[in-house]
């Protein structure tokens, strides 16, 4: 699934920016229910309306925001919620390292902005653009376009959930958060083309199930690292298969 298929035609900063925003549209569709449910759940978890809006604006990390709501509802202390947020968002460290080769020559303003707006979705779209062979010097504008599209959408959906939440009782129980699962499946499929990538996915999936009882979703990190290691191992031992594709 070539998320960034037609991006090589774009050469100016604004063309890159809009291409980035446009390529992110499918991922936005998947994120909409998630954002609305966050807004809906916030009220029943004891977070004030401005508090929920401020969390989406300042933290901007969907899964950790959800977990914070769950912990708030059970009366957890703030220190525990902040610590859990840190663990849940640790995977962004992998994304930041992955972006190093492409962002290292930019100014600190760009680095800080792209870091603040870094999400699963924007990383997945941007890394495909960076890996395309064309020499466009504006690929970071593509990432900015994707990031701002995700950010604006997240704020709007939070607000929608906060306002609509009262008129739609039990909206959080409809299972609409499955949209995120479908989105992530769609984002994984383009990678399933080589033997090492398939090995990565199989091992990461099995490890995630085995490690599911680790606290604070630490299993995600363990499973991701196990998958990455096996992918590298298979690539190194089966060079011919890997280089064919």
């Amino acid at each position: 699934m070539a998320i960034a298929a037609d991006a090589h035609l774009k050469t100016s900063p604004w063309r890159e920016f809009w291409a980035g925003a446009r390529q992110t549209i499918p991922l936005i569709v998947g994120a909409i229910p998630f954002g609305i449910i966050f807004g809906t759940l916030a009220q029943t978890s004891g977070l004030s309306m401005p508090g929920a809006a401020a969390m989406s604006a300042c933290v901007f990390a969907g899964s950790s925001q959800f977990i914070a709501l769950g912990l708030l509802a059970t009366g957890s202390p703030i220190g525990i919620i902040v610590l859990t947020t840190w663990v849940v968002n640790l995977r962004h460290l992998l994304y930041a390292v992955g972006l190093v080769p492409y962002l290292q020559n930019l100014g600190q303003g760009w680095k800080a902005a792209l870091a603040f707006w870094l999400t699963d979705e924007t990383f997945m779209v941007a890394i495909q653009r960076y890996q395309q062979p064309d020499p466009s010097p504006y690929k970071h504008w593509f990432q900015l376009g994707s990031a701002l599209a995700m950010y604006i959408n997240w704020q709007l959906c939070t607000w929608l959930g906060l306002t609509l939440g009262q008129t739609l009782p039990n909206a959080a129980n409809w299972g609409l958060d499955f949209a995120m699962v479908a989105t992530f499946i769609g984002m994984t499929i383009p990678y399933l083309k080589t033997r090492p990538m398939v090995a990565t996915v199989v091992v990461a999936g099995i490890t995630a199930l085995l490690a599911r009882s680790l606290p604070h979703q630490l299993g995600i990190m363990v499973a991701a690292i196990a998958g990455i290691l096996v992918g590298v191992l298979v690539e190194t031992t089966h060079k011919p298969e890997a280089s064919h594709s």
Partner: protein
Amino acid sequence: MNHSEWLLIGGMALVTFGIRYPVLAMSGRLRLPPRLLQALNYVPPAVLTAIVIPAIFVESGDLWFGWQNPRLVGAIAALAIGLWRQNLLLTIVVGMSAFLLWQLLLS
């Protein structure tokens, strides 16, 4: 917003940015070893799978592999249409529809 909400949101924002930014801030001086660069190619599918698989199969701490699991049915539909048509938006819409339909049929 009261004092403790500010503290909570400030703390969450700080630790999140504290993960996303420092590596990039120092990146001008970083030279990543080739083996690490090779490993980074596997980050997207590894993290996505590590999030998705438990979201499909784990229901309040237990594994649920049965056909009654609407998340499993939705995931299979998404995977099938995604492999066949290679279209992200279609994958999301078909996966979501299959999930909602199955949930409705079994409720």
